[in-house]
């Protein structure tokens, strides 16, 4: 009986015009576009310079600023206020104001000032922009110092950073494995959520309810197709990661598959629960959207999990996404073994047991 039910599900999916496209094309496109969008690297900071000094020093500094790859020099303005109006009309992000006597003060008084103003409505962008400028200014200051003081005292402590697991600090290496989880969540979460409710809206539910199909069989017949679809989606993800981004897991790919099997059961189960409670598409969609948004935002996908306040970490630890994202990143970047990931395995298995039992129980044949 289960076989026929699964056949029915697949027929329904593939007779729809839109669904097969979502299953095969959406992960592909999303994984090609998202890593470029979901990026906290700050580039193209547009800089306006007010040079009141007009000396070799000020010009040297301007040259260095405009040579930096993250900064784009967009305008030279005569006054600070005219530069400020560029920020107001969103044509510049940062102003550097070089005061009169910049060079003279440096040579005669060993000290000169400079003003760096950034538009900080977006805090990350504002502070990163300022940080880029400050680094250049401090390098410039050191170089000029060694020009003036011919022999600089050498020595001291050298601090050597080592960036383990991601030596080139490639942001995509970090995001791609986690975005696969997000895409899997969207497909294997929303489609089941809209599935049972669809049967209700079309009136099929009444017919299924009068057949001898038992509750567990019914839920299984809904879960297994998404299990297969999810496996296809995650495999597309692996291929895109491999051939578009050249990202290969350091650890064992079969461990990734093992965890994705478990994860799909959990997230599809969640969709089915909501679908059981909802009576219209709209309800199911909004409830699923509500939960998935919270699960994604609190899973550590975009922002570090440990920087959340402790109450938020408690809520976040109920998100299956949190554990699967950890697993993906650990296997892809660090090559963690199954033994090292046992805690995540147990937690995710218990999610599956609780969620899928709930899904079976929440399906009521009586209306």
């Amino acid at each position, binding site marked *: 009986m289960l076989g026929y039910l699964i056949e029915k599900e697949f027929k329904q999916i593939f007779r729809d015009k*839109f669904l097969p496209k*979502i299953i095969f094309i959406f992960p592909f496109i999303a994984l090609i576009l998202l890593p*470029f*969008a*979901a990026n*906290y690297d700050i*580039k*193209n900071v547009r800089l306006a310079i007010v040079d009141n000094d007009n000396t070799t020093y000020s010009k040297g500094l301007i040259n260095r600023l405009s040579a930096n790859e993250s900064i784009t020099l967009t305008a030279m303005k005569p006054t600070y206020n005219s530069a400020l109006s560029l920020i107001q009309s969103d044509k510049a*992000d940062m102003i550097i104001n070089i005061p009169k006597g910049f060079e003279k003060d440096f040579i005669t008084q060993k*000290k*000169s000032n400079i*003003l*760096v*103003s*950034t*538009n*900080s*409505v977006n805090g*990350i962008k*504002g502070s990163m922009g*300022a940080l880029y400028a*400050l680094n250049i*200014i401090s390098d*410039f*200051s050191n170089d000029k*110092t060694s020009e003036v*003081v011919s022999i600089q*005292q050498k020595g001291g*402590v*050298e*601090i*050597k*950073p*080592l*960036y383990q*697991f*991601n*030596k080139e600090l490639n942001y995509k290496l*970090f995001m791609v494995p986690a975005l696969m989880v997000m895409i899997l969540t*969207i497909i294997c979460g*929303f489609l089941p959520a809209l599935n049972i409710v*669809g049967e209700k809206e079309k009136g099929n539910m009444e017919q299924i309810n009068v057949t001898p199909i038992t509750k567990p069989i019914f839920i299984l017949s809904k879960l297994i197709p998404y299990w297969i679809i999810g496996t296809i989606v995650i495999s597309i993800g692996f291929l895109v990661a491999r051939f578009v981004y050249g990202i290969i897991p350091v650890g064992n790919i079969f461990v990734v598959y093992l965890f994705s099997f478990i994860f799909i059961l959990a997230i599809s189960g969640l969709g089915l629960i909501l679908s059981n409670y909802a009576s219209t*598409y*709209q309800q199911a*969609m909004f*409830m699923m959207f*509500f939960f998935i948004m919270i699960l994604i*935002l*609190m899973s550590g996908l*975009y922002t*570090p999990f*440990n*920087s*959340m306040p402790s109450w938020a970490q408690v*809520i976040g630890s109920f998100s299956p996404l949190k554990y699967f994202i950890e697993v993906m990143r650990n296997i892809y*970047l*660090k090559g*963690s*073994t199954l033994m*090292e990931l046992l805690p995540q395995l147990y937690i995710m298995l218990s999610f599956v047991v609780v969620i899928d039992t709930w899904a079976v129980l929440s399906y009521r044949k009586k209306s």
Partner: protein
Amino acid sequence: MIKQLLSFIKKEFLHIFRDTWTMMIILALPVVMMLLFGYAVSTEIKNTNIGVLNLSKDEITNNIIQRLDKSEYFSLAKNYSSYNEVEHSFRRSEVGVVIVFDENFSENLLHLNKADVQIIADASDPNTARTLVSYVTNIVAQSLKDLNKTPQTNYQINPEVKLLYNPLMKSSYNFVPGVMGFILILVCAMMTSVSIVREKERGTMELLLVSPTRPIIIILAKVAPYFIISFINLLTILTVSYFVMGVPINGSLFWIFVLSIIYIFVSLSLGLLISTVAKTQLTALLFSGLILLMPAMLLSGMLFNVESMPLILQVISQFMPAKWFISAMRKLMIMGVDVKYVLKEMGVLVLMAVVFVTISLKKFKKRLE
């Protein structure tokens, strides 16, 4: 005709109010999003677990380690005795960063005036790793300076940094306009399209169309409730952000509302457009969810910085109504600039509304024949 319109609007409201779940989610969503973005999700790095491999074990290194542990950024989690343990510990995600002092650290520093410190960061997350390394570097440098172990140069340029409009670097200043842009398009576009397509799917649309009611009345009645709901959402967001999160409203409230109303119109017309294309609710939902909401979240500048993206994505983002709205709202609300600086954004939004309405009206008429 007005009476007819009013009774149709009443019918639509009844549809919405009878669906308690959706109603509750729609009203609670902006508040939950604001609270999540405001209090839970943060890119600040605090209390990272730090591991120490101290082979030198003397006063100077102990002093540095103490300082690291005391700072708000780190808490000392592990003390290793060999390199092997470090590797294993990283793979279990026990620590984010490890500082290594080799055996003769102090000796070298005292006698040769030159010593090495190694900082190993878990660079899975590059931004966090970069920030962690710079925090550790600063703390180490500061401790050594206090212990007078590092030479000082006299010449310096003193940069003064001004963080315009947001001196306390609150992330809420950035996301409140973003949440507005997102919620309004969610309510207007998604809900309007689904409510029209539902009538089609259930067959009640035919009934409405053969009635003496003019199609324009049906459409007006469809969009009116969502206009009101999104306006309520707008007020909720402004109230929560102003009174609870302390986000300033620096610009004129009048223009903030004008801008929002234009944007609501764009979103409603987009919803109308989707409803003319989609045949089933499922398609309408997935269409607006994947093609409208995901890009609205990712490419609008709400979460990520559009200027840092590759050119092609920047071009795509120009077609996102949310991008123009969020940019204008940031200027009006947070930067408090004069309305003349946002005329371009408003113009683009008006143009989008005109285009969407024209296309969907054309399609709507065709279907009548």
